[in-house]
């Protein structure tokens, strides 16, 4: 029996497994802390886990190394505290 019959493409999730995907971004979401109510909807919806909340009560922060600029946070923010600007 061959020992090479089970070559399995298994990957384990870790930060940056796909490289610095922040370079893919066309639009940069920006959180305006003066308007943010800390409802954390942006944190909950971010499909990449690129929005970080250190501890309850902190403002959410965007990790621009990995944020792909999908703008779901921009869409879901109930108080329009997130703006978008085109990357230069």
């Amino acid at each position: 029996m061959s020992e090479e019959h089970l070559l399995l493409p298994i990957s384990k999730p870790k930060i940056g497994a796909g490289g610095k995907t922040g370079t893919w971004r066309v639009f940069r979401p920006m959180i305006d802390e003066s308007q943010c109510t800390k409802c954390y909807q942006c944190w909950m919806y971010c499909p990449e886990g690129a929005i970080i909340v250190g501890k309850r009560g902190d403002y959410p922060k965007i990790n621009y190394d990995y944020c792909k600029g999908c703008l779901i946070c921009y869409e879901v923010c109930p108080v329009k505290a997130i703006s978008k600007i085109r990357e230069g």
Partner: protein
Amino acid sequence: MMPRIDVITGNDAAAWGARLSRVEVIAAYPITPQTTIVETLSKWVDTGEMKAKFITVESEHSAMAAIIGASAAGARAFTATSSHGFFYMFEMISWAVGARVPVVMAVVDRAMAPPWNIWADWNDALAARDLGWIMFFASNNQEVLDTIIQAYKIAEDKNVLLPAMVCLEGFVLSHTTMPVTIHDQEKVDEYLPPYEPPHYVVNPKIAEPLTYGNILFPWDYAKVRLAIQKSMDNAVAVIKKASQEFKEIFGTWHGDLIKEYKTDNAEYLIISMGTVAEEAEAVVDKLREKGMKIGAIKVRAFRPFPKQDIVKAIKDVSKVFVVDRDISFGYGGILAGEVKAVFHDNNIDVPVKEAILGIGGDEILPEHIEKFVLENR
């Protein structure tokens, strides 16, 4: 439960095969002529006679996706389909191979539309010939039941780990009753221990989550595909061992990769699959009475294809007759093509005559096969 003989349909036999295999997850969508397999399983799950999870799904695509997930999470999983359901499932049929999940599927062979037709035809299952499933074709209801149990044993072998399908012809077997031995559960348990994945388990509850099947670039992808081919090669010996062990425990023998019938000193051979191969045995008996030295081979495992077994069985044969219940348009009979390729690769200079019979459930009687043989001998 002691073994007993029931008079049941091929679909009941398939359901019993899954039940005796102690399948843990079933996901399926109804389609004629498969429906009564999953109806029966659904009933048993409902009454508690089977301790399994039955997932109702909106399509065959989802049915296969669900059992791939169940198997990746460590469960023994089963589904069944036919014809258009099989084709709707097609993307996931291929996925199951790459995911290396040893699921088992009963395929109740039925013709493809249009025009609509619900009867027996191998063109549904054979469309998946090149995807990497182990493929069995059963000749009778007992073989359906036995082969589903064997299929789990083979698919789950650590040297194989590929999905397996057990094909039975629509109505000819699926809705026809025959006496079938329902094996003793304890003996089946002895033959087929619980499935324990030796390669990986996708379980979000364990400490280290993992992803299976992310992107691979060409060179690594090719190596993974080669590994599937090596597993298919391994399956040849595993099928032989599993069939032999089954015979020793249960006493039934349907062949391993092939079943030979009166091939000793045969000058002529009929090669076919499924119920047609059993019909061919009746033709062999009749022609042997008339003095013709003829035998028959049933190709039981279409994948892996029984290359060496066919070569060994050829011996003194001077002509071969292949009966296909399928057609590869623009080429010919699919089984005949495979047989011819084996002959070519092994320098066997024996003419192969081919007949395509029984398309769309057209009845194949012994006299049809006899006529084909006598007119081409």
